[in-house]
């Protein structure tokens, strides 16, 4: 990678400070276009369907799902892991790329972090719904209760509770600390009294004082330093849910790095899906340029290749270990009743990202958009394959079962997509989508 100073400007269109402010501020006051309303209507309807399905699940019980005694985790946990994975890109971009001083992150970090928060919210819903009875949610919180028995700190499922909660809260404050100066800018541009008061409240009284900026920078760096190991720990702990069990196909030490790479892989794909639409509909082509897309595609090749190597390593170890259960689990994945899911996963996650070695494809917006969806389909199937194919053939053949989701499970998943997009559309409408203060530091003729 070439040195940052010799690269072309990170944003295009010869912007000065004023035009950056205007470009980010104008969409907040402009009347949103019909695509935004259509999108919101669609997303909110999907969210409503999801909420109805969740209510039905709680009302009738988990029996209306397709899960059974053998396959206790179906779409619910697949979706949980998928959403948590998507939620990894935002903090990766803003924390790890900040520590590596990758300035190109400034155009995308704000929306990627927002996406992270919304994805983690969607993820958090699934374990709660999966409990069937919502009051069981209290049983995972360690508080001095009247039952005397505490939560089980030896269980990875409980570690998950702490990891995901911490991740959500830390991502939220990290995102908001970065937002404060930009909300101050929005407040100072607002003309109407009510809106000004609204953004005055949100901007926490930001003035842009030198002392505040000095503290702002040190806080951002410290939070990045804290969030970097945190983001690695979250999917590591999610992978422990599987890796610490004794199920063939789950009991693998390779899981933590493999899950983390997969999470960043799918997260970047989702960032690309959203950014490609947002740059077009909100006229942000000068900020999120083809160079940004190419750089993200390079991270996709890297993480996608790690995922590919992990899949092959799993197969090799299954054979090399000589454990017949392990070997059976993996042969069964590729050739058993769920072979199609395995091969969708292999095609989408291992083969297709390798096409990004071609510079032309890496810089093609349409191809990138297509790939970003292909990758997320592939990553969804990865979780489905890991969960369902490992469970459906138990040690006792009498327990062998097949799993098919019911319409309710499908609609809950559709519902979380709706919640995610509703929140994202509201975010782009009311908040500065580009971290303008940070972009202002990157332009040359300040």
């Amino acid at each position: 990678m070439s040195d940052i100073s010799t690269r072309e400007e990170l944003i295009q269109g010869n912007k000065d400070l004023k035009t950056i402010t205007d470009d980010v501020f104008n969409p907040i006051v402009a009347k949103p276009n019909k695509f935004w309303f259509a999108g919101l209507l669609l997303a909110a309807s999907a969210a409503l369907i999801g909420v109805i399905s969740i209510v039905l699940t709680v009302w009738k019980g988990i029996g209306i799902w397709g899960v059974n005694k053998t396959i206790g985790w179906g779409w619910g946990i697949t979706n949980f892991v998928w959403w948590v994975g998507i939620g990894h890109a935002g903090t990766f971009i803003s924390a790890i790329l900040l520590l590596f001083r990758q300035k190109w992150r400034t155009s995308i970090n704000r929306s990627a972090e927002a996406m992270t928060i919304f994805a983690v919210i969607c993820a958090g819903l699934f374990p709660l719904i999966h409990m069937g009875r919502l009051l069981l949610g209290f049983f995972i919180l360690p508080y001095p209760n009247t039952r005397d028995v505490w939560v089980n700190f030896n269980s990875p499922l409980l570690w998950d509770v702490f990891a995901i909660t911490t991740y959500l809260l830390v991502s939220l404050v990290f995102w908001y600390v970065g937002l404060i100066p930009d909300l101050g800018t929005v407040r100072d541009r607002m003309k109407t009294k009510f809106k000004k008061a609204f953004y005055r409240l949100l901007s926490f009284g930001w003035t842009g004082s030198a002392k505040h900026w000095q503290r702002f920078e040190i806080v951002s760096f410290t939070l990045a330093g804290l969030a970097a190991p945190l983001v690695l720990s979250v999917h590591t702990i999610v992978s422990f849910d599987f890796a610490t069990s004794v199920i063939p196909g789950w009991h693998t030490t390779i899981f933590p790095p493999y899950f983390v790479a997969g999470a960043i892989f799918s997260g970047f794909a989702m960032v690309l899906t959203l950014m490609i639409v947002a740059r077009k509909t909100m006229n942000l082509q000068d900020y999120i340029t083809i160079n940004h897309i190419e750089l993200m595609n390079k991270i996709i090749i890297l993480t996608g290749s790690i995922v590919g190597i992990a899949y092959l390593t799993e197969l090799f170890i299954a054979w090399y270990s000589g454990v017949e259960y392990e070997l059976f689990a993996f042969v069964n994945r590729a050739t058993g009743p769920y072979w199609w899911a395995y091969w969708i996963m292999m095609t989408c996650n291992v083969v297709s990202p390798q096409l990004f070695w071609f510079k032309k494809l890496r810089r093609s917006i349409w191809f990138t958009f297509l790939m970003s969806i292909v990758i997320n389909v592939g990553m969804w199937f990865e979780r489905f394959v890991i969960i369902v194919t490992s469970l459906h053939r138990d040690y006792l053949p009498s327990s062998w079962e097949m799993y098919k989701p019911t319409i309710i499970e499908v609609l809950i998943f559709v519902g979380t997509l709706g919640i995610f997009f509703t929140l994202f559309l509201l975010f782009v409408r009311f908040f500065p989508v580009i971290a303008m203060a940070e972009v202002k530091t990157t332009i040359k003729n300040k």
Partner: protein
Amino acid sequence: MKLISGYFNKEASLLEAVKSLRANNIKIKDVFSPYPVHGLDQAMGLRRSWLPRAAFIGGAFGAISGFLFQAWVFTRAYPIKIGGKPFLATPSFIPVTFEFAVLFAAFSIVFAYLLKSNLGVGANNKIYDERATDDRFVVVLDTSNVDEQEAEKIKSKFEETGAEGIKYEE
């Protein structure tokens, strides 16, 4: 309070102005800028922030209390044998201890930052100029206790370094 402020539209001229004022031992009240200007804190002679210490203290407290809490639950409050592990199953407690540490460290530094900077819901800090959050760099000086001559000198320093405007405020 009498204030005099110089307006700049370039980061470089702002830094120059701040340096030249400081070289003449003139005390700067504050500088406002639309983005963090690198080298401004050194130019203004701002002290290094102690905020990372808040993160360290918070993180250390989180780690210790998180671990002790789990140890207390499993050895004192309600010991149960789980999976044949000892009651004090230290490796099992590490993930939660780590999460406690990160959570407390992050919240400590953020609260310390907001409190120290007087930022928060309902904070009513004086906004000297709304352009400072857009494209202007503003240097503000307190001239309540300076004579005419000194005020003139400040003005000339602003002009020398390319200020595009000077504002007086009572």
